[in-house]
């Protein structure tokens, strides 16, 4: 991804909208007893499209905004989303452009990773009350929803940053007509 000031502004707007929409809309939805974690999938998509560095910085920023909007412990969501953005970016850099199946699997896996990081932070900061087994069920259902939403969210984020993608630029430059016409 080529990061120009325009693309950075688009990413900032995307992150802010995703964080606000997560809190006021997606978190209030009831899908199989839980709610979809769309903002995490947006961080995952930016990581896949922009690489580990862009993914990590985007994830950290959006996570920090979520912490502020929720008036919760600063750094909790920031650390979670940073992990998700970085891991997604590293996948792209080491394995290459993921197939549709891989995107769904990564979406599920990283949603589960996000739930585990949040749980680890909570346990690390001390939870006095009993913890129900439904926490595990919630994380698993959430990751399955993540698998289903990963492709549409990736396509949506791709639309937003399309002009900055190296692959798209190469495709645009590639000649479309038959080679025989180009030169005698």
């Amino acid at each position, binding site marked *: 991804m080529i990061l120009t000031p325009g693309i950075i502004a688009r990413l900032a707007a995307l992150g802010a909208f995703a964080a606000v*929409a997560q*809190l006021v809309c997606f978190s209030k*939805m009831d899908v*199989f007893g839980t709610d979809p974690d769309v903002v995490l999938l947006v961080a995952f998509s930016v990581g896949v499209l922009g690489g580990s560095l862009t993914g*990590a910085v985007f994830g950290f920023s959006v996570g920090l905004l979520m912490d502020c909007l*929720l008036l919760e412990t*600063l*750094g909790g969501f920031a650390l979670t989303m940073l992990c998700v953005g970085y891991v997604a970016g590293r996948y792209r850099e080491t394995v290459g452009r993921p197939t549709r199946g891989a995107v769904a699997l990564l979406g599920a896996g990283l949603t589960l990773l996000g739930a585990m990081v949040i749980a680890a932070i909570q346990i690390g900061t001390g939870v006095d*009350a009993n*913890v129900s087994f439904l926490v595990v069920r919630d994380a698993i259902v959430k990751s399955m929803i993540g698998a289903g939403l990963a492709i549409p969210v990736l396509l949506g984020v791709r639309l937003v940053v399309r002009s900055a993608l190296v692959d798209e630029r190469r495709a645009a430059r590639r000649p479309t007509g038959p080679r025989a016409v180009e030169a005698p």
Partner: protein
Amino acid sequence: MYRKQVRRRRAVLLLLVAASLTLLSLYYREGSSGGPLHGAENVVSTVFSPISSVTDRALKPVRDLVNWFHETFDARGDKAKLQDQVASLRDQLARDQTQRQEAKELSALNELTSGGIVPDGTTPVTARVVGRSPTVWYSTVTVDVGSGDGVRIDDPVVAAQGLAGKVTQTTSNTAQVTLITDADSAVTARVQPGGATGVVEPDVGNPNDLQLDFLERGSHIAEGQMVVTAGFSTGDLGSIFPPGIPIGKITRATVEEQQAYQRVHLSPFADLRDMDFVKVLRTHSGKGSG
């Protein structure tokens, strides 16, 4: 060149992780008394508050549509028969249901707070729930009234059916409400009839189950009994919840568990996952009207 890129990537990653951990520990050390990080958080929340409010209203039809699908899935026995009819009326139905639900919730809220549970010196203010935490760990919601409306930390919050929680953070126009299902929540309560007292605590991750702990030995509690706030007051120390607010209904009360653990289970009256409006019982007079 490649090595330089790798070094830069690692440095940024380390920097971000260190920043997250530093923020976590500094924020944790500040506690609930506040500090510069709490202040910065309040500023960001205040700035985004109008945007959240507008987005909440704009995306409400989308949310209602998804929730409608979920409810329909649950009632799939009737779905096939009604599908054609419902499809043509879906948009209109979503709008109508939203308005009706809001009116019903507001009416129930008014009934509850005008039924004598509001103690002298407190003024209820109606608030819309504009945000909800996306994890089961943080059982909190954000409401669209704040310190500017006279809302203060520790003010009790009631939903249409019963106790919802208490205010734990405020900005000028929003407040964070920690629900009774939050890991940190504990409410002194009384079982009616009978008068046995205990402390209502959550079962984290299971919003439909609460536990009434520390019951007096020898108290006989049966399923179906109602649990209300006790509102203890001893000298200067008093419960922040006024007495008599309905909390829930006893759902499991085995003799063994009562004798061994002095504990019974209850389900909350308030539907804490699906609240659109709540009332904050202001303990100080505010400028807003409720």
